[in-house]
């Protein structure tokens, strides 16, 4: 066994253990902030696995998108609404946990079976390595163009939805005079903050 393969094995074991334990922690820990941070750890170890498969671009993209954006946004949301409140006890919590545990266990067994019965082509296709960036770009702009664009449309829709939800105070009609306001001027001519309290 050479040094390189030993190192690879050690890295794989460490990353896998981190991944599995982290994922279990995300689900099982009662503190939601810990779960969110562990989720970041899980994403990072997935990126490490990608790196071991010689897919460095995918690994970097994984870190950038999942750790840098998704996980930070989750943390943001948790921390901005981190109110300590005692939740009402759910009736039959033990039974519910048992049920969900059973469902998860069944799913896990199913996946194990699939993993063992599928005839994996071994060794798999040779890693593309540094060429991967170019190949991904080519695919995104040729045969995967439609899903790519659909995903962007989906993101646009969710963004508009978020804006509509968040900025309900800014309406297209002037609150005082009732006439239509130029879209470009909405932000500048904001209605006074204490409008509701003023006598009508």
């Amino acid at each position, binding site marked *: 066994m*050479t*040094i390189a393969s030993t190192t690879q094995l050690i890295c794989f074991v460490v990353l896998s253990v981190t991944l599995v334990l982290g994922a279990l922690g995300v689900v099982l820990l009662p503190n939601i*902030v810990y779960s969110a*941070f562990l989720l*970041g750890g899980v994403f*990072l170890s997935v990126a490490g696995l990608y790196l071991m498969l010689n897919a*460095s*671009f995918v690994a*970097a*993209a994984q*870190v*950038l998108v999942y*750790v*840098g*954006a998704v*996980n*930070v*946004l989750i*943390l*943001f949301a948790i*921390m*901005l609404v981190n109110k300590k409140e005692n939740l009402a006890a759910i009736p039959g919590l033990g039974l519910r946990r048992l049920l969900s545990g059973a469902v998860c266990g069944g799913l896990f067994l199913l996946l194990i079976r699939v993993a063992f019965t599928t005839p994996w082509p071994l060794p798999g296709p040779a890693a593309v*390595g*540094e060429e991967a*960036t170019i190949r991904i770009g080519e695919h995104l702009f040729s045969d995967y163009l439609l899903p790519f664009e659909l995903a962007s449309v989906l993101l646009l829709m969710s963004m508009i939805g978020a804006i509509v939800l968040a900025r309900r105070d800014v309406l297209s009609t002037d609150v005082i005079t009732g006439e239509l306001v130029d879209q470009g001027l909405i932000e500048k001519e904001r209605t006074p903050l204490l409008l509701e309290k003023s006598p009508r």
Partner: protein
Amino acid sequence: MVTNTAPGLDLESSFEQALQGFGLSPGAAHLLWLPLPMVLVLVAAVVGVLVNVWLERKISAAVQQRIGPEYAGALGVLQPIADGLKLVFKEDIIPAKADGLLFTLGPVLVLIPVILSWLVVPFGQHLLISNVGIGIFLWISLSSIQPIGLLMSGYASNNKYSLLGGLRAAAQSISYEIPLALAVLAVVMMSNSLSTVDIVNQQSGSGILSWNIWRQPVGFVIFWICALAECERLPFDLPEAEEELVAGYQTEYSGMKFALFYLGSYINLVLSALLVSVLYLGGWGFPIPVEWLAGWLGQPIDAPLVQLITGSVGIVMTVLKAYLLVFLAILLRWTTPRVRIDQLLDLGWKFLLPIALVNLLITAALKLAFPGAFGG
């Protein structure tokens, strides 16, 4: 530090051959070689930080017509070391109501990505730890881990100022990451590669005239503003705005954990300056191409002596350019007032992002129109 086989000097193979001369197996020799460049770069980063701290104090003093550090060594050069020693020996306090685990993990998570990013900083054609294909993209993705560390330390401190500082830092990093990446993308588009070595090589045609700053002036400004925001330097230091947030996410930290933050922010500043010099100022390139100089002096470019001089000039040029940018950052610190958080987000999302997009589109158009000047 040599990854490829250089025509002249090859430190790696000569080092390994020397070790094999002592009776070691090739594998063991390679194993002994492996940590050397990393340790070297780590030392370089820390020394860079010490120099940076000293420069910061001296230049700040000069701008304010003070003397600055004076008694620790000649001209106060030992002051950063004294600062560091002080931080090492200070008591390491974990507040009683803080979350000890996350409190300790936060600063580590802030520092590690910054140090890892030094992987891709080239000081010469073959003088970098790893010429990875994704090069500059690695830096962008690694720097996006940092906000998690900041959020972690802000949350774990169990202090409203810390939490606000951490949230501000994360919001700031996320909003400035995008124009930064777009500015980098324009450069990458011109050099057809993400690798930092290729980016510098693409600028090395005719010395100072072929540097990217002439082809990407807008990108340079965007990148510099975003880099300052990522490093939390003034005018964008509002995560640790003293007047409002005590010290932001650093409020509860002391001793070595605070030192990690301190180190991280300064390593990040040096790193950003180095990357600006790599992306826009021709990296290790001398303003006049070294090949021309060697040609005028009648020396073959492959001669070991010329290689040695070229390598040294490369390191000096990279560091010099980086420290010129650091100087500019320090000067900017005493020139500009801190922006408000809404102004910061406005600048990032409503000004830099559209401009970066337009810059990218124009670069693409120019690349199609003039493939000779803007990379084929």
